[in-house]
Every structure is written in C-alpha cells, then in structure tokens.
C-alpha cells in the first residue's frame, strides 16, 4: 500500500475514534441512561448534568494521569530498583535502595553533564532574553519592525535537529589549504587566525557553540513576548520621562525595563524549562563527546545504549528535581490568580 494511503487510513481511525467517544458517550447518557423524558425527567436531567463534566473530562484526566502523573511515581520507583532479565526473557525489578544514585554520583560523565547543564542554565536564558529584549526594543518604533520580528522569530519553527544541521555547516572546518566552507572558520582565517579550528571539539568552549543554537532559536520567542509587554507600557510614563529630560537609554533601563520585569521573569523561566530538557541539539551535534554531555542526553545514553534503566531513571529524577521549583512557583501563582 502506498505510504500516503496507509497514513490516511490510520489517521481517520485515530481521529474518528476520539471524536466518536464524545459523540456517542453523550448520546448514551442523554438517551439511554438518563433520558430526558418520562416521569423522572427532572431528576434525570439533573443527574445527567452531574455526570456530564466527568464524561467531558475523562479522556483528558485519563491521559494526564497515565502519561504524566503515573510516570513521575513509576520513575521514582524504577530509580530505586535494578532490572534483571530472567533466563525466560521476562525481567524483574529488584529493590536496591539508593544504589543507582550512588553509582550515578560516582560517574564523572554525570558530573560533567550536571556542570554543563548549569552552564546552559546560566547562559542560554540570559542571552536569549537579552537578545530578545534588544530586538523587541529596537524593532518597536521602526517601519519594517514587523518584518524584522518575523524573520528573527522564524527559527522557532525549525526543529532542533534542523538547527543542528544548519549550525554544523556554520561550524564546519576543512584542513588548512582547502577552501573553508564553514562561515565561522572562513571569517576566523580572514581575521588573521592561523589555522582552521574544529569548533565543536574544543573543550569547554564547544558548549557555547551548542548553546548558540538554542539562543538562536529562543531569541524569537523572548522577543515576541517582550515586544507585546513593551507595547503595553502606558505612554504617560514615557512621556513624563521625556519631559523630565531622560535620554533614550535612561528611558529604556529606568522606565521600560522595570515595568516589564514580570514578563522578563516569565520569559526567563520558560526558557529555563526548555534548557533543562535540552536533548536534540547535543544528541545531533556532538552526542556528548568532547565534554559536552548534558543531563537529558546522559539519560538517553543510559536508557538506550547502556540499557541501564535504574541509573537512567535516577537521572530523570534529577531533571525532575531541577524543574520542581518552577513547578511549585507556577502552581502557587495560578492558585493566587484564581482566588
């Protein structure tokens, strides 16, 4: 069968099943279980209305519970066990306490991943937010600002893998004497460098070449949000500053930035979340070689290359722990807002 046709059929089955559930379950509720007729009509309608929210919510609650809540608990359990494959092919999970964590903390690759993740955490949100703020401010008052914004925003649509290919070409290095096809090395030689550098293999600094890819992608996001925030600043505050004789830099740093501080924090934390889970870029560009390992890739390595589910789960729990302050903060804010 042609792959397109095959795909179409699977799509129809999948989507149809989902729409069908809502339609028929509601029909069932209204026509069969609590029909809105006969002598109990009033009671039936009330009962149907008590049940209906759960009918609406059931698939979502089921999927959320199974795909997000249950894994948190299960991963925690797995991180405390060791998988053992029995001779008949089935596997059992033996309780080993904190052994996986002990083993993980003893590995230098783990600490390298932790260190690099911290580096990413410091650099990427700061750089992306700063560039985003700069772009938002600069494009705010010029005629072709919208065009410029949409071009800077464009990398958001590009996959991490696609971006990895794009930047591999930028970082490409050819032996001395051959024509350089990577623009970074071409520029470097042009500016007086002696020999081309294989950028991705220079320890420590190669992390920054990987981070540049994520900054490139996330700047657009920061810009769009901050640009809307800048638009929302009341004109009077700026007018008053102008009348008081403030220069453009003073207006920006002393009037505008303080007023959008809340948004800057939101942007910062959102990018922080992306950074904590960063996987594809490292996986596609260096796969953690040359001291560029990060936690998510370390975990993938443990899971699917070393086949060590225990340590893999333990490293996933570490990622979860790093995320949880933001989780708590978000829930706290959401509850405060609803009151």
């Amino acid at each position, binding site marked *: 069968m042609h*792959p*397109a046709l*095959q*795909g179409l059929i*699977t*799509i129809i089955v999948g989507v149809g099943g989902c729409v069908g559930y809502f339609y028929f379950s509601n029909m069932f509720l209204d026509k069969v279980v609590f029909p809105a007729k006969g002598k109990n009509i009033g009671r039936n309608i009330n009962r149907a*209305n008590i049940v*209906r*929210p*759960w009918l*609406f*919510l059931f*698939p*979502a*609650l089921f999927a*959320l519970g*199974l*795909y*997000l809540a249950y*894994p948190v608990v299960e991963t925690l359990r*797995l991180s405390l066990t060791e998988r053992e494959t029995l001779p008949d092919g089935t596997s059992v999970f033996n309780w080993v306490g904190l052994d996986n964590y002990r083993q993980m903390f003893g590995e230098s690759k783990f600490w390298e991943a932790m260190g690099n993740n911290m580096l990413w955490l410091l650099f990427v949100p700061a750089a992306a937010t700063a*560039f985003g703020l700069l772009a938002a401010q600069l*494009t705010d*008052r*010029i005629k072709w600002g919208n065009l*410029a914004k949409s071009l800077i*925003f464009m*990398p*958001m649509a*590009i*996959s991490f893998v696609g971006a990895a*290919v794009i930047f591999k070409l*930028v970082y490409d290095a050819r032996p001395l004497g051959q024509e350089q*096809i*990577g*623009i970074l090395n*071409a520029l470097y030689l042009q500016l007086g460098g002696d020999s081309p550098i294989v950028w991705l293999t220079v320890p420590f600094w190669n992390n920054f070449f990987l981070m540049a890819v994520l900054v*490139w992608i996330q*700047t657009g996001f920061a810009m*769009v949000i901050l640009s*809307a925030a800048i638009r929302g600043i009341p004109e009077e505050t*700026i007018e008053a500053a*102008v009348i008081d004789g403030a220069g*453009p830099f003073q207006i920006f740093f002393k009037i505008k930035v303080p007023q959008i501080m809340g948004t800057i924090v*939101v*942007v910062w934390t959102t990018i922080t979340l992306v950074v904590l889970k960063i*996987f*594809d870029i490292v996986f*596609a560009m260096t796969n953690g070689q040359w001291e560029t390992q990060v936690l*998510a890739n370390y*975990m993938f390595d443990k899971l*699917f290359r070393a086949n060590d589910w225990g340590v893999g*789960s333990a490293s*996933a729990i570490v*990622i*979860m722990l790093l995320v949880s302050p933001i*989780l708590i903060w978000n*829930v706290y804010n*959401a*509850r405060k807002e609803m009151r």
Partner: protein
Amino acid sequence: MSQIAGSKSSLNWIVQISVAALVLLWLFPTIGLFVSSFRTADQISGSGWWKAMFASEQVLQMRAADPDDFRVEEGGVFVVRGNLFEEGDEATLTVWGTSSRDPSANAPGDTFDMGDGESMQVAANGDYVWSGSADQMTGRGQRVFITVTSPPEFTFDNYRTVLVSGSTTDSMTKAFFNTLTVTIPATIIPIVIAAFAAYALAWMDFPGRALLIAAVVGLLVVPLQLALIPLLKLHLGIGIGKGYLGVWLAHTGFGLPLAIYLLRNYMVGLPRDIIENAKVDGATDFQIFTKIILPLSFPALASFAIFQFLWTWNDLLVAKVFLIDATGETTVMTNQIVELLGTRGGNWEILATAAFVSIAVPLAVFFMMQKYLVRGLLAGSVK
C-alpha cells in the same frame, strides 16, 4: 509621541542599522543551508556558499597533448598545438602559468619563455602553442595551470535524489509521510480531548474543579524525560509496542496540559450571557459546546494546533522512544536526518537538502499562521 523619543535622526539610523545587522545574523545560518541545497557536491566543497552568488574562480591543472604523438616539425623546432579544454567545454581562462608556484604568471595570449628556447603560448579560449627542440618536446605533455571563471550555477538534482530517486539511505519520501501520519492525529486528538476538558473546567460546576486546574498547571512543566521508561514499559506490557498508536498517545499526553491551559483560559473569557441564554432556551451542555463554544474558540484552537503541529513535526525524542523500531520502517524525518549526519556527515548536498525538506513545512505553516502562533505564545506565558 514616538517622534519625541526618536527625534534624533542619527539615533534612528543606528537603530535601523542594528536591526538590519541582527536580522542578517539570524538569517545567515538558514540561508547558508538553503543555498547549499541547490549546489552540487563539488561546488559545496570547492567554495563557501556565500560565494555561490558570484562567478567562481577556479585554478585547474591541465596538460598539453603528448608531444611524442602530436608534435610537428616547423622550421627546425617542434610544435604541439591544441586546446586545453575538452571538446564542447566552452570556457574562458583569465590567467595562466606553467609553474605551480605561480599559476597566474601570464595573461591570455602571452608567450612564456620557459628557457633554452622552449616556449608556451595560451589564448583565452584555451588554444595553446607549445614549441621547443626535439629533446624538450618529448615525454609527457607540459603542465599548464589555468584560472577559469565559471558563472553561478544551481541545480535541483539534490532534491531529485532526496525526494524521488527512491534510494533507501537518502530518500526522505517515506519519512515525510511517516512524519505526517504521526503529526496530524497527534495534533487533532489532543485538541478534541482538551477542548471538552477545558469547557468542563471553565463552565461546568463540579467538586474539585480548582484542584484540577492547579494540577494541570503543575503538569505543564513535568519533563517528558520522566515518562519515557515507564510508558515504554507500559506500551510493551499491554501490547501496543512501538508504533503509531503509541506515539499518538504519548504526544496527546504530553500536549494536553498546554492545550487544556490555553483553551480554558480562552473559554473563561467568553461572555457568560451567551451561554446562559442558550441554557434557558433548553440547550444541553453538549450542544452549547459544539454549537457555540467551539466556533467562538477558533483562535485559541488554532494557536494550540500550530504549537502542537510544530512540536510533533520537529520532535525527535518521542518518536525515537515510542515509534521507531529495529526495522526502521516507521522512521520520521528528524531521525532520518540524524542518521544522515552519522553516515553521510560530509555529504553536505544530501544533508542540506534533507534538512530543508523537513524544515520547509513548518516554515510554511509558520509564515501563514504567525498571527495565531504569537497569540498563543502570549496567552500561554504571560499571566
């Protein structure tokens, strides 16, 4: 007002130039890949893509014809005449030389004295006259270094290889359809599920509603890394195994918190009157939802649809864990590209083209529906 802040025109110019520089910096990497996908392998390794727009200069090493076969005696000296280019290869050389140390020593038409009466003359069209004594005019043909300018040249061959050649390693066709098969249901299913849930959370009264909303906000940030092992274990355990169903369910689960959050926030803002009027007129919740709420929520639905589409189309991790099995029949484009990076890391013409095929669809969606994407971003992160 804008004129007050920007009244200094020199500052305005600086702003314009910085924005232009920023935009160029952001565009440059992508353009590099785009241009490269239209060049042949030789062109890509021969010169940087930024030179592709201009006529390129190349130094070629040519050799005169074998003197033992082709020399003719003319007035006491032996002469070999011919053309350096192959027949049908129309080209023009700009400079030439006989030594590798100075390949641009002579202009076209010059006669170069190679010493002891031996001489070489090369014209712009490649015609040469090589003359000398019997001793000199033997052995191999004289080396000539020429510099030719070839006009910029672009080709669709790479796209042909990647899209229609059917080669098993380079072909993206199958991966393209697989990606579509993953993406479309993985976008629609969570929207349908989330829309019903969001309506319930926004407009229906039931115990525990506030708690559920808080839970959704919390689940928004749970890293999907956590879900990989338990869910893979579950899928293998209940017999779904690795396949489309598994990947749809996974994408649905991971996309739901954002979908519910965005849609609920939007639906809460819809006017209460409409819903109450409909209730008074005897509409059920199901009717209110499908006939009133859904059409009104179109902007929010579109925003999330774009997010989820971009996310599932660009995803590598979920597909690798839940979809792609050992046979590789169900490979998606991102995975295909990572594999190309491994096997054909140096073949930029294939790599660039494959990457561009996978980038093209999200880019098209992005530029067509940017409005909704921006709106969604604003609704999703600014609180």
